[in-house]
């Protein structure tokens, strides 16, 4: 009896929201002793075959229309901002390599990155700056946002398609940006260790 009531509450909360809710947020609305994960699983099962599904996304929970009905709904929504291929590729590199610097993105793609691309991805709230790397120049690194996970229906970046294959093939190893120069025989910069620490006057603080 109680369980039904609690399930109803969870259902109402999730149904009312257009964003994923964490089980912690849900628990806030329920008595402390409620085993929320079990209820969520039951609810998920209840909706599994329906037109609306309960999915786990970005470590949170959300109702969404069933993917197989996409063909019907698609016409309801007009705007489909198409990303340029360059932007899509950049997004992929950022998501698989994150945190990754601009120079590393350029290295992987083999071309320089126009400024607008990162802007577009940031505007879509798919990527965000992830802090600076402790290497010379202290370049900014980029990574993906929660919004990215939600948009692509991923529970975490570990669920990126083909991640393990890319890793196994060694393609996600550190990108050596010094290789960018194809013609020049410049040697890669060696050992960019944490020299920064001992530099008293530099960028620190």
């Amino acid at each position, binding site marked *: 009896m109680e369980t039904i009531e609690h399930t109803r509450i969870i259902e109402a909360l999730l*149904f*009312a*929201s*257009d*964003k994923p809710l964490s089980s912690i947020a849900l628990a806030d609305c329920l008595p402390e002793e409620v085993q929320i994960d079990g209820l969520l699983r039951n609810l998920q099962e209840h909706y599994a075959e329906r037109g609306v599904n309960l999915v786990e996304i970005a470590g949170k929970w959300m*109702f*969404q*229309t*069933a*993917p197989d009905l*996409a063909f019907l*709904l*698609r016409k*309801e*929504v007009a705007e*489909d901002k198409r990303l*340029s291929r*360059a*932007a*899509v*590729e950049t*997004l*992929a*590199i950022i998501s*698989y390599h994150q945190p990754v610097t601009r120079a590393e993105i350029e290295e*992987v*793609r*083999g*071309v320089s990155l*126009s*400024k*607008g*691309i990162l*802007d577009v991805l940031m505007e879509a709230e798919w990527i965000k700056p992830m802090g600076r790397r402790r290497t*010379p120049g202290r370049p900014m690194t980029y990574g993906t946002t929660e919004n990215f996970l939600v*948009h*692509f*229906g*991923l529970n975490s970046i570990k669920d*990126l*398609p*083909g*991640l393990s*294959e*890319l890793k196994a*093939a*060694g*393609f996600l190893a550190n990108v050596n940006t010094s*290789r960018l120069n*194809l*013609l020049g*025989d410049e040697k890669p*910069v060696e*050992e*960019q260790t944490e*020299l*920064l620490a001992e530099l*008293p*006057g*530099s960028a620190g603080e």
Partner: protein
Amino acid sequence: MNDKETKEQLEFTHAAQGAPDGEAVLILDIDGFEGPLDVLLALARTQKVDLKQISILELVQQFLKFVAEAKVQKLEKAADYLVMAAWLAYLKSRLLLPEESSEEELSAEEMAARLTYQLQRLSAIRDASARLMSRNQLRRDVFARGMPESVIVTKNAIFELSLYDLLRVYADHKTRNAIADIRIHKRDVYTLDQALERLKGMIGLAVDWTDLYQFLPDSNTGSDMPDNMKRSVKASLFTASLEMARSGKAEIVQKQVFGPLFIRKTDRKD
């Protein structure tokens, strides 16, 4: 998206598509050419990646044809391709010639391996990006609640402010607006002129490469110098060294990133 670049790309793509179909390999993957790796990737695909097997002659011909027919307006774009063609030719020659033992340069095999790796990685990331984009996307394939009801939340804002803060701010405001004596303190800095003078004077004493920091004037001032002054001294000394190098009075060398800067006097005999 950068308008200019988009336009450039468009023009470029357009021009490339204008090329007659035929054996020109470059036409095959025309919709996204951006630069060297892209083209190379297209080539590598058709020629099965093994760089040793790539016919340089054919490659160069294709490039020339491509560049000519594309009527590339942006010279730097064309240059990109030429650079790569040259590089490939060079690599090919290295692969064909017997290996020289040189510690300085990477062997041709290593270079080829690297390039192959890069090409495969780009290709793999492309596959991955295609898989990513083919996932069900929110607002394209799957949809969230169209009429979310969530935020009828009445927010009872609790404003945090103590009487202390209120008074503090008011007093600050009064203080600010009061006619008060304003004193601007002299800032303690080590001027560039001072640093230049010092460096010029001392550099003659040093026979060989000397760590720039050896010239820091902390011997007399002692270590009780305030931190911001120390920083100022370092900054000025560094600037002075650059100035001297620029005017040809000194040479500077730094052997590793963030390593010490060495300076020595230029022995010019003029």
